């Protein structure tokens, strides 16, 4: 197993395939490739997997009911939803099938519901139906006044995006993929093999997959392609304490209308409630900061949707950047002569679609000559559970009896035990920062943000730092 975070990249023969970008899509592709008896590299500019767009999405396992019918996205989201739901069940990734309601707050939105229901059918999703106002209110008693109706999409689910990416990367690394982090690509000299100039020295590879997210257009240009430009679209989100969880039962999605797309209110698998996102087109691909205006806007919209939510404590405010391309579909492009595939323009549905995107990309690589012989099933992995709807160690008498460290709660807000922190620090893909540890365990991710446990968690992290 090879995971490197510093020093020159290992030399030797060129890789058969290199995937640039260890987000949820790149990691899924690396996992899919790891079935093959080939030399595979997964590289990322960050110090951790899933550290860009993937860590800051809305954490929903979509049905794809509202994709553009007939698009690649529509197909990959539909297939990916099925694949990921099964994978999550096998792997221990928490998924809660709470269902979604697209709530109409004005006549225009109400009038849009039949069209959305029809679109769902055209996307192969047949369980959506329109609910009258009284039924919406019965299902969501805390909704603000003025609800006119809703589209019920019962199969939309909550999922843990952090565990998903980590599970893919873990499985890939265990199956022999070399994961090189802190490894930004500075330029590419196309050839046979391609030579990537990285921040950690040259890397040679026969096939190249570009899953660089916000930077996918830059990598594309190194190979002479200008198909699309990534415009970072910032989404700010407010996360409320788990004591707010009782206020909302479904994912409350906005109905798009002439004034644009509204914000959503959704529970998370961690038991919080999330409000957001904003949608701001920016130039700066590093602008992951929140703004006073953005937060004020979210609070104003949130107050209308779920008034009681605003009285709850906020545990986190963050902003993610989505890789918008101005196109209505994923920008997946194969360049067989260059043995190169670009996976661009993957928006928030990419989490759901990730496994189907991976299978699709491997198919495109095969068309460019990558041999698919000798494939074997990857060894299953079992990930630590971060979801509230599933057994967690602090409530598991058998785990504690076998190892008392699972009864030693370190992070009190999120009930994270010392045993879980120890496991994460010793895992196949360990964290490189306390934030990375939080995404693996939830430690110091709660209402006190480290007031009680921050020092203890940081001390455990520093102790394990290589």
């Amino acid at each position, binding site marked *: 197993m090879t995971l490197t975070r510093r020093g020159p990249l290992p030399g030797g023969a060129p890789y058969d395939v290199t995937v640039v970008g260890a987000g949820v899509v790149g990691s899924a592709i690396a996992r899919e490739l790891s079935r093959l008896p080939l030399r595979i590299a997964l590289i990322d500019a960050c110090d951790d997997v899933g550290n860009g767009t993937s860590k800051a999405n809305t954490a929903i396992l979509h049905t794809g009911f509202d994709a553009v019918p007939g698009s690649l996205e529509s197909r990959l989201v539909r297939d990916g939803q099925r694949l990921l739901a099964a994978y999550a069940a096998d792997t221990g990734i928490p998924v809660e099938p709470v269902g979604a309601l697209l709530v109409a707050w004005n006549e225009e939105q109400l009038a849009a519901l039949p069209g959305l229901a029809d679109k769902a059918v055209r996307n192969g999703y047949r369980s959506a139906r329109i609910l009258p106002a009284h039924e919406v209110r019965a299902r969501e008693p805390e909704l603000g006044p003025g609800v006119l109706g809703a589209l019920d999409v019962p199969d939309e689910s909550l999922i843990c995006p952090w565990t998903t990416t980590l599970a893919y990367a873990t499985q890939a690394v265990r199956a022999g993929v070399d994961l090189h982090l802190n490894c930004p690509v500075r330029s590419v000299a196309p050839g046979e093999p391609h030579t990537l100039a990285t921040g950690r020295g040259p890397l040679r590879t026969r096939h190249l997959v570009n899953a660089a997210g916000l930077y996918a257009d830059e990598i594309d240009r190194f190979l002479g392609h200008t198909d699309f430009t990534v415009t970072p679209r910032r989404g700010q989100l407010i996360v409320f304490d788990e*004591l707010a969880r009782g206020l909302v039962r479904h994912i409350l999605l906005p109905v798009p209308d002439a004034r644009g797309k509204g914000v959503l209110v959704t529970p998370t698998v961690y038991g919080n409630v999330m409000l957001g996102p904003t949608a701001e087109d920016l130039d700066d691909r590093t602008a992951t*900061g929140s703004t006073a205006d953005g937060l004020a806007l979210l609070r104003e919209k949130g107050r209308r949707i779920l008034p009681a939510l605003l009285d709850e404590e906020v545990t986190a405010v963050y902003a993610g950047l989505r890789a918008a391309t101005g196109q209505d579909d994923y920008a997946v492009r194969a360049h067989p002569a260059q043995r190169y595939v670009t996976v661009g323009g993957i928006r928030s549905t990419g989490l759901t679609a990730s496994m189907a995107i991976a299978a699709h990309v491997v198919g495109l690589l095969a068309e460019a000559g990558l041999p698919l012989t000798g494939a074997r099933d990857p060894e299953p992995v079992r990930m630590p559970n971060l979801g509230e709807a599933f057994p967690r160690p602090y*409530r598991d008498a058998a785990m*504690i009896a076998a190892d008392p460290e699972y*009864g*030693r709660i370190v992070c009190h807000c999120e009930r994270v035990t010392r045993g879980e922190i120890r496991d994460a620090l010793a895992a196949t893909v360990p964290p490189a920062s306390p934030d990375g540890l939080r995404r693996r365990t939830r430690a110091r991710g709660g209402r006190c943000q*480290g*007031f009680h446990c921050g020092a203890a968690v940081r001390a455990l992290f520093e102790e394990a730092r290589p």
Partner: protein
Amino acid sequence: MTPVNRTDAHADVLVVGAGPAGLALAARLARAGAGRVEVLEREPEPGGMPRHLHHGGFGRAPLPWLRGPAYARRWARAAAAAGAAVRTGVTATGWAGPLRLETTSPAGLERITARAVVLATGARERPRSARLVPGSRPPGVLTTGELFRSVHEYGLPIGRRAVVVGAEPVARHAAATLRQAGTDVVAMVTEQPRAAAVPGIPVLTATTVGELHGRGRLTGVAVRHRDGRTGLLACDTVVFTGDWIPDHELARRGGIPLDPGTRGPCVDAAFRTAAPGVFAVGNALHGIESAATAVGEGEAAAASVLAHLAGAPWPEAGPPLHVRAPLLWVTPHRITGIARRPLLLRSAEAVTAPVVTAAQDGRTLWRRRFPVPASPSRSLRLPPHWTARVDHAGGPVVLALG
């Protein structure tokens, strides 16, 4: 999810939280022969907040003034010596019944049934996120609680240049701790128009934190003065101090009503919550007060707990106490009998020589001018005698300034 393999246990009094309030209460109850008095502490050591406060000034005459850790140890010893069982590393995770708590510890899962439960769960500071301070999310953003533990308990490096948000006593202790850790304090920033001077540190009054900057590490804090001036304080560390909120999660999970002002459990002057048999004391009621106040509340609550154990009925809740702006909150929140201890009253604004009035149904019950100023960081202590004049069948008692 069904809890499995929980061990059933019993106690006469179950105190949640081994800070000064919980320990003082447990010591008094155990000494009074209340039966099995058990104190649950989720941290590895008992003592609560003073464990992390290495400055002096704890305790009261005729005892010597102590530093926080020594004071914490003193109360832990006192409770144990009186016969209370102080159990550390045990977390009360939720309720299995009205007076039945579920716990987790390295020894396993328990379900403890008691005749009385006392919530002495303390308070925490609101972190940056809860204050909705925008900007990036780099490392180097702390609360005082994390700072104290990082420096005193773990000896972790902090940073080179820090900004302290707040200018209350806790902020001054944060500044002192930062200096002790070798960190320069660039400035203290407070929204209040006035603040006490701190030697060697600029105190920026009437100033708010606008935004945090930095990726990988904090690089600066944007500030805005009330007059519109803005600036950027270059620093790699920012400590958010004060803005206390009771750790009320266990109360809420038990369906115990909170006071909207304090966000702590609503109690009467005998520390009774709305749930029969459940009491609340200390900073869990009102955010941070002095350790001596917490001890005083714990000791005073002992009589009420003993009365409950002896079979005294849980009284009907009396009229609520309300506050008018700029007042923020008062404890207790209801008057069921005559209060025996000073009421604590907090103002959102500094007011010199404040006049406090208490009125019920248009009738003034009490009025007094205080020689000390009302302050957002310090409670006024109202003498309790006038609560005897409250009409228990009447409307809310309203406290106001002027």
